[in-house]
C-alpha cells in the first residue's frame, strides 16, 4: 500500500515537473520507475509510454478544440513517427538493458546541456508552452516571435507542403520533417519519451511552423507514436498493470495541476533545479549502464 502511494506521489511529481518545463513526464518516469522502485528499464519504458499517451491525449484534445494543432501536418508526420516507433519497439526487445540505460543517460545529458545553454542565454522558454489544462477554454494566439506570415489562405492549386500549411504560415522542407519524425519515433519507443525534443525543433526551425503550432502538433503526434510501440510492449507483457496504474494516475493528475500553475512558478529557478536532477539521474543511469 505504501509503495502504491509512493508511486502515485512519484508520478504526480514527474507530471508536475514535466508539465511546468514543457517536457512531458516521459523523461522523468523512466528514472522514477527504474532507480526509484528498482524495476527493469524496459518495463519502465512501457509504463512511461502509457503515461505520455494519457497526458498527450488530454492536452491534444484541448489543442485541437482551440485549432492550434495542425491536424493535417500532424497526421502526415505521425505516419513516420509511428513507423519509427514500431521499428524502435522491436529493437528495444533485442537490446540489453545496459545499452538502453546508456542511451537514456545520453538523452538526459543532452537535455541538461540544452537547458544550461538556455539559462546562460537568458531565453527561458515560455512556460505557457506547456500542456493546457483539460477544460481550459482560453483563446490561443501565435507568438510574436513566430515566423512571419507568408500567406493567409490556401491557393487554388497547391503542392503537398501547401496543403499541410496553416493560417499564417507555410510549411517547408518536408523531407527533413519526415526524417526527424522517423528518428523521433525510434527514440520514443526505445526510451519511453514523447519525442517532442526532436519534433518541435524540426517543425519550428526546420519547417517554418510557428512555435505554438509545433508544440501543439507534436503533442498530438505523441499519441499515435507511443501507441504503435506501446501495443508491442503491452502484448508482449512489457507493461505491468500494477506499476502502470498508480504511475499513470499520478502523472496525469500532476500534469494537469502543473499546467494550471505554470504562470505562478519561477521558471528560471525551476530549470536550475531540473538541471541538477537531470545530471544526478544521468550519473545514476551511467552507473547502471556500466554495472
Amino acid at each position, binding site marked *: 500500500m505504501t509503495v502504491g*502511494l509512493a508511486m502515485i506521489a512519484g508520478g504526480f511529481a514527474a507530471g508536475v515537473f514535466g508539465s511546468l518545463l514543457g517536457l512531458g513526464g516521459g523523461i522523468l518516469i523512466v528514472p522514477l520507475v527504474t532507480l526509484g522502485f528498482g524495476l527493469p528499464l524496459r518495463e519502465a519504458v512501457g509504463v512511461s509510454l*502509457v503515461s505520455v499517451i494519457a497526458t498527450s491525449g488530454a492536452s491534444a484534445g484541448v489543442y485541437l*478544440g482551440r*485549432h492550434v494543432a495542425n491536424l493535417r501536418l500532424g497526421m502526415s508526420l505521425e*505516419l513516420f513517427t509511428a513507423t519509427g516507433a*514500431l521499428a524502435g519497439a522491436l529493437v528495444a526487445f533485442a537490446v540489453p538493458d545496459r545499452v538502453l540505460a546508456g542511451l537514456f543517460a545520453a538523452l538526459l545529458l543532452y537535455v541538461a546541456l540544452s537547458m544550461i545553454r538556455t539559462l546562460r542565454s537568458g531565453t527561458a522558454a515560455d512556460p505557457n508552452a506547456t500542456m493546457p489544462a483539460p477544460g481550459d477554454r482560453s483563446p490561443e494566439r501565435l507568438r510574436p516571435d513566430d515566423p512571419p506570415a507568408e500567406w493567409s489562405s490556401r491557393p487554388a492549386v497547391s503542392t503537398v507542403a501547401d496543403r499541410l500549411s496553416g493560417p499564417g504560415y507555410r510549411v517547408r522542407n518536408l523531407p527533413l520533417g519526415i526524417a526527424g519524425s522517423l528518428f523521433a519515433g525510434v527514440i520514443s519507443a526505445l526510451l519511453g519519451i514523447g519525442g517532442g525534443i526532436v519534433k518541435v525543433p524540426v517543425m519550428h526551425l526546420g519547417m517554418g511552423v510557428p512555435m505554438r503550432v509545433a508544440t501543439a502538433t507534436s503533442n498530438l503526434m505523441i499519441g*499515435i507514436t507511443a501507441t504503435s510501440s506501446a501495443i508491442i510492449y*503491452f502484448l508482449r507483457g512489457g507493461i505491468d*498493470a500494477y*506499476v502502470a496504474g498508480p504511475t499513470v494516475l499520478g502523472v496525469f493528475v500532476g500534469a494537469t495541476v502543473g499546467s494550471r500553475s505554470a504562470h505562478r512558478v519561477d521558471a528560471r529557478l525551476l530549470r536550475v533545479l531540473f538541471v541538477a536532477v537531470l545530471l544526478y539521474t544521468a550519473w545514476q543511469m551511467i552507473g547502471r549502464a556500466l554495472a
Partner: protein
Amino acid sequence: MRATAARGAGDHGRGAERDLERAVGRILMTATYVGVGLIAAGAILMVLEGVSPLDPAPSLSPADAAAALVALRPEGPLAVGLVVLIASPTLRVVSSLVGYLEARERRMALVSLAILAVIAASVVLATGQAA
C-alpha cells in the same frame, strides 16, 4: 466576384476543417478520460485491497479482464483502462478517416489508412512474436 467566391469556398473549407478538428479533439479527450478514469478506479482498488505495485500483475485474457472488472478486482479496471488508453489515439485516427472520407479528401483519407496499417502491423508483429 470570382475572388469573393474563391474566398467563400476557402472559408467554407476551413470551417469544415475546424469542425473536424473540434470533433476529433472531443473524441480523443473523451476516450482519454474514460481510460484514465478506469485506471484511477484500479489504482484506488489496489490501495484499498493492499496490493503492492511490486507484486506481479496477472496476465489476463479479454474475458478474464471483463470478469475482473465486474467483480471489482483491481486488475480488471487497470487492464481495461490500459487498453482504452492505448486505443484512444487510434480512435482519433479512425474518426479523422471518417471525416476526411465525408469531405472527399482522398489524400488525407489515405494517410489515415496508412497510419492504421502501421498500428495493425504493430498488433500482428507483437502477437506473432509473443506466440
